[in-house]
């Protein structure tokens, strides 16, 4: 008698604790070994691009907030830069500094969620709450400045909606001092834990060549050892004025480009962001923040592709204007959308538990993938 085996198809999601939203993964399993992963996306599709065609340019900003809801500031930042590039607006110095401070704070907040949920994916729940506790401080900073905690509509075309709160700079400085030891604590609790290292090192190795060919950007690309950061390599805003490092993965605990590297690059990036924030606080000039806001946003006909280094990678806005107050086409090159594509490649030959580890290390936000 011969035994027949058949491959098991396991549906992971759309409702699953660790798919980070409504992602459905169709896993083909050989026991617990994965032979194929097919991601199914679109459960959170809200037609952002269609909406944008019916909106005026400033009205789109609240919608960009809702794409990558963990890094709303940066979405606005990117969008606003694209429109300003199209219209040729110069913004005041102070606005640039405010945007950079906000952007970097947002990067820390976003990475904190990424790291915390990654810990939770691996099974450690405490770091998750520690990260959220620290993120709360950043959200408070945003709240006193813009009035909202998550979806800010703060960065506007040509300026920002409010000037900084009088306490903002002091509180930010306090936060920087508060946060440095917390990063160390996170490292002690999770990063260098041997079980965590075992779970993540040598898992889901993404070689640099493959990463570039797949269009991977952001911390995921840097973890593969490619020193590519738009803040340095294609500087926008005033990032060329700051002194900071670009952390890259070097395979410290396993192979270069594995999950642990992707995780640790984010930890180090938070520290670099702290550096930028500190410098920006020192240098920020006084001035009017609303002076360059145009009364009527009506860019000339033409197309523009502008990109920023979002916490998740390269966030590009491709805007085609036909010279009216509504854009003709807004296409978002969402970093998570592109980064998720490589999942199938990374997961092959690993186990079910590794899918969670790899997916978490890519750090996707479904709001951005489905838009």
């Amino acid at each position, binding site marked *: 008698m011969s035994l027949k085996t058949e491959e098991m198809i396991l549906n992971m999601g759309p409702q699953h604790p660790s798919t980070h939203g409504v992602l459905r993964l169709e896993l083909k399993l050989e026991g617990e070994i994965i032979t194929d992963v097919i991601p199914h996306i679109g459960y959170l599709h809200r037609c952002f691009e269609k909406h944008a065609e019916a909106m005026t340019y400033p009205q789109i900003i609240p919608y960009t907030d809702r794409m990558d809801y963990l890094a709303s500031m940066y979405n606005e930042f990117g969008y606003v830069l694209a429109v300003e590039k199209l219209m040729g607006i110069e913004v005041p110095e102070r606005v640039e500094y405010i945007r950079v401070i906000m952007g970097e704070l947002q990067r820390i907040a976003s990475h904190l969620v990424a790291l915390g949920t990654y810990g939770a994916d691996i099974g450690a729940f405490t770091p998750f709450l520690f990260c959220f506790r620290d993120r709360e401080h950043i959200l408070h900073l945003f709240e006193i400045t813009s009035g909202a905690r998550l979806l800010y509509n703060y960065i506007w075309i040509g300026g920002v909606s409010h000037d900084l709160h009088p306490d903002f700079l002091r509180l930010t400085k306090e936060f920087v001092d508060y946060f440095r030891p917390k990063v160390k604590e996170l490292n002690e609790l999770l990063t260098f834990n041997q079980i965590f290292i075992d779970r993540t090192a040598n898992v889901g190795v993404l070689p640099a060549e493959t990463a570039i060919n797949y269009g991977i950007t952001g911390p995921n690309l840097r973890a593969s050892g490619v020193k590519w950061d738009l803040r340095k390599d294609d500087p926008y805003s005033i990032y060329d004025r700051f002194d900071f490092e670009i952390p890259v993965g070097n395979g410290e605990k396993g192979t270069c480009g594995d999950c642990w590297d992707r995780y640790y690059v984010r930890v180090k990036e938070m520290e670099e962001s702290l550096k930028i924030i500190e410098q920006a606080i020192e240098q920020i000039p006084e001035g009017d923040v609303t002076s360059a806001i145009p009364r009527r946003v009506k860019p000339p006909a033409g197309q523009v592709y502008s990109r920023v280094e979002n916490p998740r990678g390269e966030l590009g806005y491709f805007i085609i204007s036909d010279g009216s107050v509504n854009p003709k086409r807004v296409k978002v*090159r969402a970093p998570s959308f592109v980064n998720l594509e490589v999942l199938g490649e990374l997961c092959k030959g690993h186990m079910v538990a590794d899918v969670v580890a790899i997916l978490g290390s890519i750090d996707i936000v479904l709001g951005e993938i489905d838009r």
Partner: protein
Amino acid sequence: MKTPEEIFEALKNKFGEAVINLATDQPVDPYIEVAPLEVDKVCKFLFEEEGFEFNSLLNLSGVDDANGEKVKDENDNDIIKGGTLSVFYHLESTIHRHKIVLKVSTDRENPEVSSVEDIWRTADWHEREAYDMFGIKFLNHHNLIRILMPYDWEAGYPLRKDYQNPEFYKGMKVPY
């Protein structure tokens, strides 16, 4: 580091008719217009040729040019007849640090563009998205199915300018 003009020259010499023109009247980025069925060869060249080596496809974006004539169909809805759909390719070389924008325009009624999926793997989902949203068929794509919309969506391609919301999807009312 190569300017768009140099790239255009090189492409023109190599491909002749397939490379149509260089649009420089743009406020920000100029783009090179390429014939839709030759774009994969052009891209392959840009990807491989020394001195260009565009190893990264930043973005691939479908666009409805809406340049056809507007007519009314039998239900009195505006639809667009004729005209073109376009695809924009944003390429970048992380080695030489130069960028270029390619544009292909294809017929609205039968939009066909050859796929660049085998050059840059990232084009896979981008092309699926363009297919999903505009109905642009990418020839030689290995798995050209809808990606964001339901797989069995039959009401057309939502990002076209003349898209009409269907009344019902599987018995569910669509406009809530």
